[in-house]
């Protein structure tokens, strides 16, 4: 029983946490690709930026002496999302829109997004230095321990408060996005533009508006994803630069341009990573009792060593690109 709990803690909970972050990031990448047709490399840094915005706001709240039942990082999230969305709009207007108007190729926009990456990273490090910070310097991170002794287990299932909030927030955002894309006029216009931009223009759809909505969604979701990551682990300037590739992997596995694919892809990549480095001996140890003498399980039985965790995502990314660049869902759309 303890083995199962270990599995739940190490794989189910960690994988879901990571999957939520990947999914929220990948939605942004996939929407931007669907509408603007370029790979937005600066997305990881938009996540970092969002996390730092939330961090600053949380600091303001704390210094004002306001105490909240939830972690302050979560309380300030709505405001941080708005600010992140505004900055995303500003970035588009100053760096991408002029190139689009010139009729630049998608590659040029991709290179421009590298420029944006460098600028955001530079600014963040200029202001905050390159050290690691924590949202929980002054408050405690509550941990919920679900007692499982009724099932004969000694260990509890343990999950932190930010993780629980993350599950709820991700679920709410995904449902909201779904309703937006399938029910609202603007959401449908977004799908229309991702499907056929020329026809969307011909239909009189205000494509400039759709582009703005895309940045608002992508920017605010990136802010949530970044803040969640920072709440779960810690806040660093190169926080999301390391995970922008897994996020691209998620978006590509799900099929670039397909919002639902991005969500599935995010969880797929996250669980692949978590399972690949999971030490199976921890779960299979009871087998030692039945295995013959001298055939005991090795102390570490994981598919890849822990230091290669991120590499798993890269390998999935490369294999998907080579085998099925359009994603694993055939015929799926937005």
């Amino acid at each position, binding site marked *: 029983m303890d083995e199962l709990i270990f599995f739940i803690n190490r794989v189910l909970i960690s994988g879901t946490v990571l999957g939520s972050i990947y999914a929220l990031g990948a939605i942004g990448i996939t929407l931007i690709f669907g509408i603007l047709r370029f790979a937005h490399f600066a997305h990881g840094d938009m996540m970092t930026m969002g996390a730092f915005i939330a961090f600053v706001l949380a600091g303001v709240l704390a210094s004002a002496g306001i105490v909240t039942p939830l972690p302050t990082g979560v309380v300030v999230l709505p405001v941080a999302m708005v600010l992140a969305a505004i900055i995303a709009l500003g970035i588009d207007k100053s760096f991408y829109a002029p190139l689009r108007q010139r009729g630049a190729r998608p590659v040029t926009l991709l290179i421009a997004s590298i420029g944006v990456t460098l600028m955001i990273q530079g600014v963040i490090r200029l202001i905050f230095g390159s050290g690691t910070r924590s949202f929980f310097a002054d408050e405690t991170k509550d941990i919920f321990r679900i007692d499982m002794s009724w099932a004969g287990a000694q260990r509890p299932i343990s999950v932190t408060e930010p993780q629980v909030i993350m599950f709820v927030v991700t679920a709410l955002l995904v449902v909201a996005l779904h309703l937006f894309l399938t029910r609202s006029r603007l959401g449908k216009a977004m799908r229309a533009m991702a499907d056929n931009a020329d*026809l969307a223009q011909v*239909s*009189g759809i205000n494509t400039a508006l759709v582009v703005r909505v895309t940045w608002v969604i992508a920017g605010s979701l990136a802010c949530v994803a970044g803040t969640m990551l920072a709440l779960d682990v810690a806040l660093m300037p190169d926080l999301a630069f390391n995970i922008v590739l897994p996020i691209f992997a998620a978006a590509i596995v799900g099929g670039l341009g397909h919002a639902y694919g991005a969500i599935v892809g995010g969880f797929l990549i996250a669980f692949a990573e978590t399972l690949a480095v999971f030490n199976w001996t921890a779960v299979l140890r009871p087998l030692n009792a039945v295995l013959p003498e001298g055939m005991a399980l090795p102390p570490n039985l994981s598919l890849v060593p822990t230091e290669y965790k991120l590499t798993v995502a890269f390998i999935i990314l490369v294999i998907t690109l080579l085998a099925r660049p359009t994603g694993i869902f055939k015929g799926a759309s937005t």
Partner: protein
Amino acid sequence: MALIELKHVVGGYGGAPILNGVDIAIEQSDIGVIVGPNGAGKSTTLKAIFGLLKVMGGTITFAGEEITNSLPDRLVPKGLSFVPQEKNVFTSMTVEENLEMGAFTRTDDFSDTMGWVYQMFPILREKRRQPAGELSGGQRQMVAMGRALMSKPRLLMLDEPSAGLSPRYVIEIFETIVKINGEGVGILMVEQNARQALAFASRGFVLANGQNRFTGTGQELIADPEVARSFLGG
């Protein structure tokens, strides 16, 4: 006053002009048909009206108002609609969603317009929950026309609506066009099935090398021996 009027329109895609002075004028009661050889600039003319390329000379007026180089999101509310020749449906969206996109610029209730479109194309009502990409060529053309009608246009522009359709569907599409015209929508269309289209056209324009070669009623053009010899295949 003409519904749409092009006066000596010159335009192209950035390089040398493709249109070298096109004149077109039709009334709301008209069915105007543009015919001409491949590469004559027929599609380009429709795109020029719809602001999809740069007009470098001449003027375009719609119901007395100059609309030269206006963009679609301004033109659709004024009462113009355009059905491009290819890729004219949102394949991943349902038929009904396609129609809704046609009504994007409308802020009023458009359910009666949708009823009108379904009445015009009953098959679309049956398939309204199906992705447009799964429909046959003729049904897609109906979705495309239905989408364009959703904005309640005064002028419907169609680029080769019969291209690639079986003869049975060609007749059906042409009949529908006449019917739409009968409900007070001006039509301006490009057609390869020139003789068939000119037969029901009230205005015909023969374009070659980006210029008008002949203009007249459909019947006049069919009767003109030179038009028949050079452009209608004898």
